[in-house]
C-alpha cells in the first residue's frame, strides 16, 4: 500500500519482459517515483517493458512526460516499450498531447506480451 507521494508499483519479470503496474493517480507528486522506478528497470536493458496502466485512473502531463522519457530510454537500449490497458481518461490525455500514435498502446497486458 502506498501513501503520500510514493506510488504503489508492482514489478514482475515475464521471460524476457518486465511488467510494471503502477497503482493510483499519476500527477506531479507521484510521477517522480514512477520515473525513478522505470529508469531503474530500463537500466537493466530488458527486451520488452510493458507498463500496465489499467489501475491508473488519472494521469497529468508530468506522468505523460515520465513515459516519454521512458520511451526515449527504451529506444536507446533497444527495448520495446508498450503501454497497456489505458483507462479512457488517461488515453484522452495521450490523444490531447498527440502521443497516442507515438507509443505502442495495447488494449491489455496479454496483447503487449504476445506482440
Amino acid at each position, binding site marked *: 500500500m502506498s501513501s503520500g507521494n510514493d506510488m504503489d508499483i508492482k514489478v514482475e519479470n515475464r521471460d524476457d519482459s518486465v511488467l510494471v503496474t503502477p497503482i493510483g493517480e499519476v500527477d506531479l*507528486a507521484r510521477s517522480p517515483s514512477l520515473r525513478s522506478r522505470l529508469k531503474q528497470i530500463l537500466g537493466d536493458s530488458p527486451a520488452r517493458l510493458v507498463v500496465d496502466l489499467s489501475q491508473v485512473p*488519472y494521469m*497529468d502531463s508530468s506522468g505523460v512526460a515520465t513515459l516519454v522519457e521512458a520511451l526515449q530510454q527504451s529506444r536507446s537500449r533497444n527495448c520495446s516499450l508498450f503501454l497497456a490497458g489505458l483507462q479512457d481518461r488517461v488515453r484522452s490525455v495521450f490523444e490531447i498531447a498527440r502521443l497516442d500514435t507515438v507509443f505502442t498502446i495495447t488494449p491489455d497486458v496479454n496483447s503487449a506480451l504476445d506482440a
Partner: protein
Amino acid sequence: MTRLPPAIRIEILSRADLLAPVRAMLTSFAERSGFDDVETGHLALAVDEALANVIRHGYDSRPNGRIWLSAFLIEEPERRIRIEIEDEGHQTEPEKIASRDLEEVRPGGLGVHIMQEVTDTCQFERRTPGGMRLILEKTPRRAKKDPSDQNHAGSPENGHQ
C-alpha cells in the same frame, strides 16, 4: 457590472501533494454544476496543469508559495465554470506563454497545450502587485444554447465577470 463572489475560494500552498484534493473538490463541483464525466475530467486536468505550472515555474518547486483558487458558476449567457488561479511567483509576459510544437517528442512542455485544448478560455495575466493570474472557463455541452431553441431553460442572470 457587479462582480459575483466566487462559489469557492481557497488558498493552498505550492505543494504537489495538494493537487489531488483540489482535483477532488473541483470534480465534485463540476459534476453538481451539470458537467458530464468527460468535461469534469477535463476541467480537473486543466486546473491540475495550471497549479503544477505555478508550483514548478512560478515558485521553482518551493513548497511555501501561496496560491489562490476561485471557482465561479456563471449562468448567463450560458452556464459555465470560471476558475481563477493567482499566485505571487515569478511573472512572465502572457504572450510568451504558449504551447510548444507537438511534433517534437520530448518530455515536458505539454501543460499549456492541454489547458488550451480542454477549456474554452485559457488566459494568462500579470497580477498586481506581483505573480500571475490564470483564467480558465469551460461550458458544459448540454448548456450550450441551440440557436433554434427558443424555449431554452436558462437561469436568470446572476452576474457577469
